């Protein structure tokens, strides 16, 4: 019985999110209607009446609770209020207090009956308001108390509810809880998603559910990932470790299913999101990827395969068999977690060029280490993992047989002929090409990015950044093959810089003729950099030109540097002698020359 009706404000979108269903105070999806003065007056009176009834019922509930009354009448009172306002959380709490009390005075049969009635009441609430946090949580609570739960009935409820709205995430979560508590086999749930996807491909919730079930059912490897077993409380394990990997056989089946989906509805994003996940499952091993030592600088630099807090992961430096007490700092004070860390050695440790030194860096938390030998007469040395160089970026995409990917690419290319404007298809083709042969397909990739920016102009910055990332990856791959420390990225339309941790050893970099607006703090990972060319960009700020010990020449012609203060980071680079600022707004500043002489005393060759 709905004594105190509230306007039912059902709507399509995911509303009422943060503060439970905010259906009253926040008018989600309520169309504003014009009304006459008379109608207004009638409405006002109606509201006044409802308000009185509501306040009376609420006060009755509150005073009963205050007196500690836990009777059936109180259950009825809260029921009346909650059936129209299920977000009144305190009333659910009162109800639970009453039910807990009743458990102590009733027989088991009576308790069973009481909770069954509660479930019937809740079903009514959920029918009216299927997105109420309060109702769903209370239902879960009832199931945890009822002597003999009927799990099939709960699964049936979920089926009906998802039949009405197959995206209701409350119901999906409730279903997952029921499945877990009642021991429904994972296979059966996977078949459930088969069924839903079969009837409607466009169901993101079902694809999502699949992504959580598959790794359980068809794990890539039976052994738990190594770092999980060693996870220490001091370092939360990274998300990549909650492994999402799936065995190859199942993966092929998934490709087939998802292809059926996007051939049926090429504009439905659900299947494409899922497909990108299938393509990108491979994970990068956690390790020390490089150890670099500079004799002159008396410093050691360590690069990791992911950002870490070196001060907290148990990093141990051993030089010639002796553990050294050193302070690790990240390349920029902004980073608490960073892939590149630096430490200064105690003066004299390695400075004598006639000595040979053997260094080892232990990452004790991961039980891994890397050695590096500094030979007699050498001013620097490094040891890096060359085995991963080739697969550095492709590994992010796939470990699958290339023949499978090749045929996937063929399929997508066929689809593109039918749907030439389909951005999802174009993007997927780009990803497949990268998984197959990033350098070989570079030209096609660039052309596809132009298409993407055209057909989906709202997200052109996303595509520009992604394209920049791929171009940087390709250049790194080429550099790896050539084994040089000169890195040229000029004229690549770069809008962003990434993978800078891979450039730790680079001495010369050319970034000219791109669309960069900043040299970000990450740029400080180029610890060996001597010469920087970055002419003809749109650079406004240089936070990344920070404590680069070997930086000598910086060319920033034709950029957008407008304030003297933006040049301040350069004052931390002790060897800087040449600076070209021609064509920047800052050159119009009064007294610039003398200001710069004070700010950057080491610069002898200044071009304004």
């Amino acid at each position, binding site marked *: 019985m709905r004594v105190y009706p*509230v306007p039912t404000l059902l709507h*399509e*979108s*995911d509303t009422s*999110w*943060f*503060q439970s269903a*905010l259906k*009253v*105070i*926040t*008018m*989600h*999806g309520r*169309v*504003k209607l014009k009304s006459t003065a008379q109608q207004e007056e009638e409405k006002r009176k109606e509201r006044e009446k*409802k*308000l009185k009834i*509501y306040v009376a019922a609420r006060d009755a509930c*509150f005073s009963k609770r205050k007196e500690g009354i836990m009777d059936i009448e109180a259950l009825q009172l809260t029921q009346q209020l909650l059936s129209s*306002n299920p977000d*009144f*959380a*305190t009333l659910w709490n009162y109800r*639970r207090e009453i039910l807990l009390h009743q458990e102590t005075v009733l027989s088991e049969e009576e308790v069973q009956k009481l909770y069954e009635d509660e479930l019937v009441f809740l079903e009514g609430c959920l029918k009216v308001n299927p997105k109420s946090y309060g109702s769903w*949580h209370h239902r879960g*609570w009832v199931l945890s108390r009822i002597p003999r739960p009927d799990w099939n009935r709960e699964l049936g409820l979920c089926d009906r509810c998802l039949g009405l709205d197959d995206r209701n*995430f409350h119901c*999906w979560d409730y279903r997952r809880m029921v499945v877990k508590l009642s021991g429904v086999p994972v296979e059966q749930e996977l078949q459930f998603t088969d069924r839903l996807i079969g009837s409607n491909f466009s169901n*993101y*919730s079902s694809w*999502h*559910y699949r*992504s*959580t079930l598959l790794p359980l059912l068809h794990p890539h490897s039976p052994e738990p990932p190594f770092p999980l077993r060693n996870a220490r*409380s001091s370092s*939360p394990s*990274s*998300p990549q470790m909650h492994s999402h990997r799936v065995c190859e056989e199942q993966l092929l089946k998934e490709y087939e299913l998802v*292809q059926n989906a996007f*051939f*049926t*509805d*090429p*504009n439905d*994003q659900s299947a494409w*999101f*899922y497909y990108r996940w299938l393509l990108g499952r491979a994970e990068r091993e956690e390790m020390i990827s490089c150890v670099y030592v500079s004799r002159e600088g008396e410093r050691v630099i360590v690069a990791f395969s*992911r950002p870490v807090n070196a001060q907290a992961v148990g990093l141990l430096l051993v030089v010639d068999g002796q553990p050294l007490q050193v302070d690790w700092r990240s390349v920029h004070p*902004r980073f*608490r*977690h960073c892939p590149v860390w630096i430490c200064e050695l105690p003066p004299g440790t390695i400075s004598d060029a006639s000595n040979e030194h053997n260094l080892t860096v232990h990452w004790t938390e991961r039980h891994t280490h890397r050695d590096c030998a500094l030979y007699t007469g050498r001013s620097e040395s490094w040891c890096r993992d060359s085995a991963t160089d080739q697969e550095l970026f492709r590994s992010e995409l796939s470990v699958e047989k290339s023949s499978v990917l090749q045929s996937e690419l*063929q*399929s997508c290319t066929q689809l593109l002929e039918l749907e030439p404007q389909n951005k999802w298809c174009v993007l997927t083709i780009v990803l497949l090409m990268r998984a197959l042969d990033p350098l070989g397909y570079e030209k096609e990739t660039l052309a596809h990015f132009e298409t993407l920016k055209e057909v989906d*102009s*709202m*997200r052109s*910055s996303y595509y520009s950044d992604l394209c920049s990332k791929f171009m940087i990856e390709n250049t790194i791959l080429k550099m790896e093959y050539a084994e040089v420390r000169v890195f040229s990225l000029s004229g690549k339309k770069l809008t962003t810089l990434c993978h800078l941790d891979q450039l730790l050893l680079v001495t010369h970099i050319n970034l000219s003729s791109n669309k960069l607006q900043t040299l*970000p703090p*990450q740029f400080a990972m180029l610890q060996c950099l001597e010469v920087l060319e970055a002419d003809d960009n749109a650079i406004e700020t240089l936070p990344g030109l920070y404590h680069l010990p070997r930086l000598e020449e910086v060319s920033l012609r034709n950029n957008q540097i407008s304030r003297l203060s933006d040049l301040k980071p350069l004052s931390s680079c002790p060897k800087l002698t040449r600076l070209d600022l021609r064509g920047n707004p800052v050159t119009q500043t009064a007294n610039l020359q003398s200001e710069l002489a004070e700010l950057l005393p080491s610069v002898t060759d200044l071009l304004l």
Partner: protein
Amino acid sequence: MTNSKKKSRKDLGYHPKMGTQVKDVVLKPDAPSTLLLEKHADYIAAYGSKKDDYEYTLSEYLRMSGIYWGLTVMDLMGQLPRMNREEITAFITACQHDCGGISASIGHDPHLLYTLSAVQILSLYDDLSVIDVHKVVEYVKGLQQEDGSFAGDKWGEIDTRFSFCAVATLALLGKLDAINLDKAVEFVLSCMNFDGGFGCRPGSESHAGQIYCCTGFLSITGQLHQVSADLLGWWLCERQLPSGGLNGRPEKLPDVCYSWWVLASLKIIGRIHWIDKNKLRSFILACQDEETGGFADRPGDMVDPFHTLFGIAGLSLLGDEEIKAVNPVFCMPEDVLQRLGLHPELLS
């Protein structure tokens, strides 16, 4: 699998549904296109004065958050002095319970949602002394579970929203070290999905609101490097629809409050430029009510304080100079966080 077999399936397989409908709205040409700041301030100032209104009364179960929305949007518009400070702080004092938790209204039960709202309000007013801060910390601490998650209250509902509420509350109080942070982080990360997003609990589907909570949580706890920023950023920027508005999940309608949840998340992970700012701005402006002031979820719908805050806060993130700068993590004016010395991490 042979190629020929694949081909035949393909030929059978291509049955495109004709004209797949994108769920979206169309902005009318006469929709508001300028910011009606004064009207919004008047709307919020008048809102709290209708205390015996039916709908106002019905919303008392979330009153504390309602006040936070109203005060924050007024502060962002430089109109905070128009609100009744004494009345509000007295109300908050009266809503703190013996356990330390704070309720939405007098007579209601305490909850993390309203504890955070109350602490946010008192931070705006720089007046935390009106509550027992030590007890608040104890309350939050007591709600952390074995697995690192947080219950919203003693009845045990678990949700990443509550993880956010817990760390946001403690950060504002300068007591982040009161809880087991590593465990808390571990739980939130266990809610990360295949698309880089986050849901309510492990296994739950990604949702822009939860993503805001989880990226905000990871920002406060200094763990943003654990986010797959490129993957998540892609999912988030795909929330923008042709109307310029943002939805909260794939295949849903746009809504002004998502201009906050999505935009703030993008800002936190350093990818706000991946959406079309001008189109979003037009959408948000079109959701204003020219007569009454305030913002609605979509053009032509009824306005409310909730969407008014998130409309204004969204415009602030988009760089509107008539509005104070908003902090994407706490959804409070930047100057307040500066005063508190809080600088939550943002990716670049």
